[in-house]
């Protein structure tokens, strides 16, 4: 993937912020958490910091199964996705109950929050093919910001489960995300917001 065909990561994430519905849950992790926290926050945001490595998709699957009428959007990184590729099979295996789960992979080819070391993939992995191979029917890929902005609403809105591969540029020299507060308290507030 050439650098010329990568979107600015924060702007690509901002398109998700603009397109998410008021009842949608958005889970961010690692670099997407860092950038998401610079945008206006919502009671149904899950800033997955601290996290378990690669498990944002699994957390999203659980939420999707518990709340099948609600859209669950997971903003994952490529490094995180590579750590838990099996979760894509688990998501598809869950069947119709996970139909409103959306996995977005922001692929910058590096472990950005640890200093931008290359992932084993180094940008050569075809995440769309992996998603299709896992059984996803709704699979998209974008490397142009204007195109992504135009289509983000439709990508998030359809019934799937849905997978979108977003090719973004790494952001160098910026620290990783800090926890926005005690996780247990945030978990309680989030669960309350889901019930309200």
């Amino acid at each position, binding site marked *: 993937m050439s650098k010329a065909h990568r979107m600015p990561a924060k702007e690509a994430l901002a398109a998700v912020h603009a397109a998410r519905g008021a009842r949608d849950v958005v889970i961010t992790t690692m670099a997407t958490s860092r950038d998401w926290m610079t945008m206006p926050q919502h009671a149904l945001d899950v800033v997955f910091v*601290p*996290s*378990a*490595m690669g*498990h944002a998709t*699994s*957390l*999203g*699957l*659980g*939420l*999707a*199964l*518990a*709340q099948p009428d609600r859209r669950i959007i997971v903003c994952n990184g490529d490094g995180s996705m590579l750590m*838990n590729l*099996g*979760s894509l*099979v*688990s998501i598809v*295996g*869950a069947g119709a109950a996970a139909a409103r789960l959306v996995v977005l992979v922001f692929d910058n080819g590096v472990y950005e929050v640890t200093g931008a070391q290359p992932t084993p993939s180094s940008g050569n992995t075809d995440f769309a093919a992996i998603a299709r191979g896992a059984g996803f029917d709704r699979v998209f890929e974008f490397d142009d910001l204007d195109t992504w902005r135009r289509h983000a609403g439709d990508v998030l809105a359809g019934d799937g489960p849905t997978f979108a591969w977003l090719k973004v540029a790494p952001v160098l020299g910026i620290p990783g995300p800090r926890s926005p507060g005690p*996780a*247990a308290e945030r*978990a309680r507030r*989030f*669960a309350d917001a*889901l*019930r309200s």
Partner: protein
Amino acid sequence: MTELPVNGPISGERIAELLDELGVTHVVTVPDSTIGIWQPAIEARGSTQIVRVCREGETWQVAAGLYLGGARPMVMIQCTGLFESGDALRNVLHDWKLPIFAVIGYRSYLNQDTLPGDTCLVFTEPVLDAWKVDYKLITKPEEERVIADHYAACQAAKKPGAVVIAEGKA
């Protein structure tokens, strides 16, 4: 030690009844040869949904999402999967402090005399202690109520817990 029936101390039907009684909505699992044979009975009863995942680390995070979403999940894995899933367990139980309960198969526990040397026997309980999981060990069929009692106690205290079920030959 009381001899246990082949494939575990408790039947699938009894486990399904217990899960129903406890209000467990989802079992998130990677099977082994003991806990796996419970699946048909759980599905037949219909009150608890089985969520099959590819790797044990997923079980804790899927259960976390289910719990936050208002469900009452239970993790069901073998001790080997417990070893695999440490980071996920740590995050769910100790960072986010979610009271997720697990049933964990204890590989080779009943084979200690005839097939010694399985390191599951060395590490299972120390690992649970290291992760600060309040667990109870079941080695006899008549101890099945321990699952219900310990689950209820942990849920009432809003803390995680586990029941470790001895596995091996009868």
